[in-house]
């Protein structure tokens, strides 16, 4: 084994992989936030809570219905997405005419309710989710590092999901409606497109993305009611750094910051929790609109 800067390569690449995995979740979550913000002009504070619901969905299905990983990967996002549609119908659509800050406050309230309810029934310690299918068990020794298959799968899966979302929005007919409605909802409505329904479904889709990230995360982290609030603030910082203007921006900054965080764990572990916020502060100084953002 060749040590690099006195750090064993196994540790270095191990942490880089961990960084990539965290980055996958940052990317998926900030992608959902960006899609929702584009059309609804709401920063979805409940995004973390819905990510947590996705993970819990998978765990509950396994625990009570014996439903395994693969079905849960589809079912849990569908169910949580449907729940998101309900939230939009019941609450969010009432406040589109108000100042955007009310959207933040409303979804903050929703996040408290969801998190509180789950804490009430499942405590804060978290549950283990051991339903990784055989296909994804084990790992490869790549020579310079050991790659657990599941972790590799998370990175690949999130890249596929991100690419799929980018393709759907930037390259399909439906996506062009969505982009048009982001620019000018009234005009698109005048062309006979049901914009309110599109808004509802967009929210549901963004929420489903969060839930899918939750299912992917379930076998890696403990499924805990607090897992959402732990990650959402970091994702907000990622969003401030990347700017919410573009999908590519959200994905690139998600993965990039995950890697930076992983590197920090190797070289200066004390700062690993704060490094993303420090990066955010620097970006605010140098390019206040965010790396990929348009000037506000």
């Amino acid at each position, binding site marked *: 084994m060749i040590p690099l800067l006195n750090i064993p390569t196994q540790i270095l690449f191990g942490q880089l992989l961990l960084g990539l995995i965290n980055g996958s979740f940052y990317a998926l979550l900030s992608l959902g936030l960006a899609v929702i913000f584009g059309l609804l002009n709401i920063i979805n504070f409940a995004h973390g809570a819905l990510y947590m619901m996705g993970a819990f969905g998978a765990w509950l299905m396994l625990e009570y219905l014996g439903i395994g990983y693969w079905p849960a990967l589809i079912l849990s996002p569908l169910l949580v997405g449907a729940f998101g549609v309900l939230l939009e119908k019941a609450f969010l659509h009432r406040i589109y005419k108000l100042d*955007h800050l009310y959207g933040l406050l409303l979804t903050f309230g929703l996040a408290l309710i969801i998190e509180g309810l789950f804490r009430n029934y499942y405590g804060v310690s978290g549950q283990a989710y051991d339903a990784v299918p055989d296909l994804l068990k084990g790992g490869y020794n790549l020579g310079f590092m050991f790659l657990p298959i599941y972790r590799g799968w998370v990175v690949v899966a999130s890249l596929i999901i991100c690419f799929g979302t980018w393709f759907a929005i930037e390259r399909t007919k439906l996506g062009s409606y969505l982009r048009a409605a982001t620019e000018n909802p009234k005009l698109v409505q005048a062309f006979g497109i049901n914009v309110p329904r599109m808004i509802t479904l967009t929210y549901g889709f963004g929420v489903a993305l969060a839930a899918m990230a939750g299912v992917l995360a379930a076998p890696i982290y403990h499924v805990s009611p607090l897992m959402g609030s732990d990650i959402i603030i970091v994702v907000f910082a990622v969003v401030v750094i990347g700017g919410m203007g573009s999908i590519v921006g959200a994905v690139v900054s998600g993965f990039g910051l995950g890697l930076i965080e992983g590197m920090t764990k190797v070289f200066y572990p004390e700062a690993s929790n704060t490094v993303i*916020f420090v990066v955010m*502060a620097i970006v605010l100084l140098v390019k206040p609109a965010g790396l990929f953002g348009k000037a506000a």
Partner: protein
Amino acid sequence: MSTMNVETPAAIPGTSNLTKLALVALLVLALVAPFGFYPIFLMKALCFALFAAAFNLLLGYGGLLSFGHAAFFGGAAYIAAHVVKVLGWPPELGLIAGTAVAAVMGLLIGWLAIRRQGIYFAMVTLALAQMIYFVALEAKFTHGEDGIQAVPRGKFLGLLDLSDTNTMYYFVLVIFALAFWLIYRTINSPFGQVLKAIRENEPRAISLGYRVDHYKLLAFTLSAALAGLAGSMKALVFQLASLTDVDWRMSGQVVLMTLVGGVGTVFGPLVGAFILVTMENYLAQFGSWVTVIQGLIFVICVLTFRKGIVGEIAELIRRTKGERSSGGGGGH
């Protein structure tokens, strides 16, 4: 960002007298309150009332929603607790140290945050406050999960023994009254007027020649310092500084207090703080249901009750006054 607020009651003719009357009534009430209520509860409510009033100065009058005020509240609590307990400073210096550190933190965080507006401002403050949380989690002097416990209250100016609960109550009340007076004066000063102008129409304020960023930064720093004073006081009252004080939920709580009471009203934060502290007292046994109920109140407030309690009352007074004056043939 013009809808995120309510007109100040002082803007209506005659209500300024009403405000003064309410101030006097509140002061009398506060002086006799320890005879009817548990002083620790009252002190907790006063600390949070000051915290919320400081927050409201920024949101209600500057139109800036900070989602990171727990950093100043909790950060100052740690500093005050540390200098009093470990360095043996007297309580008055503890309060000053906590407030000063909060002011410096406010200056730095505000300097970064005012580069963005609206929603981004809220997210930036939230993220920077989370950074402070992690610093508090990992720094040595904060003692991690334990926090700084058994902070001595000491003697004020070496004379007044604050370990006596009633003495402590009046000490807290005096500081609260002074700080609240400062906020009241700020709101009604030319500086406060410019802040409101920025809140209503920032480009216009710029075109009128105001250096908007300076005003925002000063308001942010002042708000942070006063939130720090509230946090330092809280550390002395409960003789404890802990991670709860710097947690993002604490930032959410102060937003909720202000929202319930009435954003941009003089008394709203006080009313909201008292209601939520009372609620927390009664619901403490129900554990995480408190979080659920707070979330519900958030949702209800945003959907149907955006003016808050004091805001609704002010609206009612304004309407009856309007009716009376129009009924009297436009008397004045």
